[in-house]
């Protein structure tokens, strides 16, 4: 009977070998994958009890972990909660993470491979691993200007957003969305309070957790005329001095309706220059222009600025701006003035502006400037990279000149800064008949050496319909943001 017994010995050895191999797979090879599961309470508890890295703006933390004496050893705090809520996001036991807390979680929690050496040292030194810090590109003064600018319009309930970029790098200098919320409530360790807070915030019709600058698209209205003008100039058939129709209304083919100007009056003559048309934001001229160059050219130009694409890695859930496919002639005319089905995020319009400011090259936007290990060693520094070349430098120069005219003597005079040349464009966009139009303003300054490009959207300021205009509501905020950056 010894032969079968030997066979059984080999069989049993195979069984135990299978157990060894399988536990190696489970505890070593598959472990990282299992540890990343959302419902893995152990990992969440441990991460929650760890000293999470700070999120820094201009050297001050806007999110930090402070020691507590409760079941988790550290409490996440957001000192300037409302102002930075949409950038820091929240870090909640029950509801996970959002914004930078989400996109930079590996560094903040300390699990990033770049922190590997620190982890090993911590393990042998028997100290708790710490997370690394994330430093944002935000200019605190610009952020404050944008935040206060929106608040001064109508308090904390005003709906609007501001996005400011450094045109030469793509760094996001300010991003405010209103109404805002307090992420401290979601980070609370009193876990029983979380569901109510979450329900209140996510069911709020004003959607305070939405970053209106990045996560929502709006009809860009007349600010889109910059894209139409860029397409026209790039076609080579038009110059800033080309004559375009400037009457009181434009006959739309295939329909019974006409396209009037915003105020129902003429743009200053039957034939005006392109510069004049932009200066007074002439719907007739740009509607006509759109039909002349066609929807394909408009779409291509819009895509060169970033429409239809995702380009922001540092914040989650970026909405994609849209220029509709397949347009007939009247739809093309409407789209050329930023109506019909055209929709853009404030970030997208800031990129259009920044691209013009940067000699035609749009830079890839980014929010994270630097990540550092817990002992302040710089692990990674943002490297500005060009995103797309939208227009030639001569077209960018012509457009800049036209936009300066808008601020100097056109619809955007409210954005003038004494002693500094400002280039801008207003917009007032209808979305539907029964709701108030959106007020837009995009601009950059100084026009000869751009330091900041900004897009301001006021969705609803709670003012009468005829008081809503890009010039009246949005331009002063843009001015404050630009001043904050330039007067440093």
């Amino acid at each position, binding site marked *: 009977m010894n032969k079968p017994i030997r066979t*059984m010995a080999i069989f*049993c050895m195979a069984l135990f070998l299978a157990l060894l191999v399988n*536990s*190696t797979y489970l505890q070593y090879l598959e472990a990282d994958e299992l540890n990343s599961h959302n419902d893995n309470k152990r990992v969440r508890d*441990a991460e929650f009890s760890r000293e999470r890295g700070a999120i820094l703006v201009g050297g001050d933390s806007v999110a930090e972990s402070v020691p507590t004496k409760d079941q988790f050893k550290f409490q996440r705090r957001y000192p300037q909660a409302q102002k930075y809520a949409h950038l820091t996001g929240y870090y909640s036991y029950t509801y996970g993470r959002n914004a930078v807390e989400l996109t930079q979680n590996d560094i903040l929690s300390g699990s990033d491979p770049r922190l590997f050496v620190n982890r090993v040292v911590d393990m042998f030194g028997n100290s708790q691993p710490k997370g690394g810090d994330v430093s944002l590109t935000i200019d605190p003064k610009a952020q404050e200007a944008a935040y206060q600018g929106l608040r001064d319009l109508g308090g904390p309930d005003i709906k609007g957003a501001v996005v400011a970029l450094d045109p030469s790098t793509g760094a996001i200098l300010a991003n405010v969305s209103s109404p805002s919320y307090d992420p401290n409530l979601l980070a609370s360790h009193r876990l029983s309070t979380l569901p109510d807070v979450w329900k209140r915030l996510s069911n709020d019709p004003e959607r305070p957790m939405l970053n209106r600058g990045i996560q929502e698209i709006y009809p860009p209205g007349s600010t889109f005329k910059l894209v139409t003008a860029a397409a026209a100039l790039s076609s080579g058939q038009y110059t800033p001095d080309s004559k375009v129709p400037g009457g009181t209304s434009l006959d739309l083919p295939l329909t019974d309706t006409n396209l009037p100007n915003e105020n129902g009056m003429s743009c200053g003559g039957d034939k005006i220059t392109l510069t004049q048309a932009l200066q007074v934001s002439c719907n007739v001229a740009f509607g006509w222009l759109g039909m002349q160059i066609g929807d394909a050219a408009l779409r291509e130009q819009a895509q060169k600025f970033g429409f239809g694409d995702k380009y922001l890695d540092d914040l989650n859930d970026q909405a994609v701006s849209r220029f509709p496919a397949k347009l007939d002639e009247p739809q093309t005319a409407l789209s050329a003035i930023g109506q019909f089905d055209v929709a853009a995020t404030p970030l997208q319009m800031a990129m259009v502006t920044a691209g013009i400011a940067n000699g035609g090259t749009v830079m890839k936007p980014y929010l994270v400037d630097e990540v550092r290990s817990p002992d302040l060693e710089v692990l990674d520094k943002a490297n500005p990279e060009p995103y797309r070349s939208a227009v030639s430098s001569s077209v960018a120069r012509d457009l800049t000149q036209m936009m300066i005219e808008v601020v100097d003597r056109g619809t955007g005079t409210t954005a003038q800064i004494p002693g500094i040349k400002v280039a801008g464009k207003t917009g007032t966009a209808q979305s539907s008949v029964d709701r108030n139009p959106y007020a837009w303003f995009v601009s950059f300054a100084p026009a000869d050496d751009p330091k900041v490009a900004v897009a301001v959207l006021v969705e609803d300021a709670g003012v009468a319909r005829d008081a809503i205009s890009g010039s009246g509501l949005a331009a002063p905020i843009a001015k404050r943001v630009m001043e904050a950056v330039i007067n440093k």
Partner: protein
Amino acid sequence: MPGNPLTGFTHRRRRGAELFLIVISLIVGIGAYAAVGLGVEGTVPADIVGYGGWLAVLVIVCHIVVRMTAPYADPVLLPVVAALNGLGLAMIHRIDLANLEQNSDAHTFARTQLMWMTLGVLIFIAVLVFLRDHRRLQAFTFTSGLAAIVLLLLPLMPVLGTQINGARIWIHLGPFSFQPGEIAKVLLVIFFAGYLVLHRDALALAGRRVMGIDLPRGRDLGPILVMWLISLGILVFQRDLGSSLLFFGLFLVMLYVATERPGWLIVGGLLFVGGAYAGYLLFGHVQARVGAWLDPFGSKYDSYQIVQGMYGQAWGGLVGRGLGQGDPTLIPFSYSDFIIAAIGEELGLTGVMAVIMLYGLIVERALRTALVCRDAFGKLVATGLAVVFALQVFVVIGGVTKLIPLTGLTTPFMSYGGSSLVANWAIIALLLRISDQARRPLPDLTGSMDEDATQVVNIR
């Protein structure tokens, strides 16, 4: 005399080596207990002397009994068992502490488990003292078979039996609950061995050859097949998948070893596949287990336990969180069936591998005993015990680590559970008894006896 005339080799007693290994295993067990205290409360537990002393006394007494009654027994088995049992106790104590932290009235298991271990050691001693020759058990072949069936039927009795966690495998006698299947396991090994020793030639040689397989005569196969059907049938009614698998595997392997016909493995393998598929089609709880195994992260089947076990082990990683530093209470039944997941979490892959290697050592030492054993009955009993032990470890650890679908079985010597602990101590005592017989030098018979005279072996 330089050596045994039959093998040319005389085994040494090696009791000193056993004692040395026992000291190491006690360091493991008591050290783990101290580490639990350090990890959870920051101090060495106050009862370390009493606890450690008691554990040491139990194991040393076992050693002395072995020294006196089975001096040639295998020196590795007892220390390995002591290490596993000590580690299991420490782990159960650790889970107790975690439960107490959440609820100061929580039920604790470690003290009861130490009591059960004491009972196990008493049984161990009783087996070694009263069973001086394992061949005596052969006389109880059919008694064992009957007793096994009765034990397996007990949980189905209306008053005695209790259904716990979906399986009706428990009986209650006053304050005690008991899993008779664990004892039946040992009795079945004895029955199969005794029966096969008598009938193996008939099973192997008599009969017809059909499609390249030698089929035995019905009357040789009959009783054993009936036995197997009864035990399987009972287990199906008790919804105890793990034990079904265990008994079937045991039956098959012993048949193969006794007859030396690999054809049995093929036939049995086909039977197993067919039976498993039929079980899958017929029984909802089998489908649930397989479903949870194939897709533990889908929401279709209840896979909470297995997923938590996997999370725990992944969290433990290579070296573990350290005793007292993990969250083993997140895993349901981490003190019993899932204790290996708790080990994986707190002692890491290293700890799990060490435990698997210890189990492997027990199995291979038992098979080695079977190899050197001089009588067929002893060979079969040792092989049967080794295989049933190996299968049980494979089924439970494989189930917890998601190698195979999860079936409820205890982890020998580690899981909380009295019946399992007592039965396993009895298994080790039997193995030691057989190995003592196998390794003992043959009495020097040359010259002293008439060569032609019939030798009488007293087997009773």
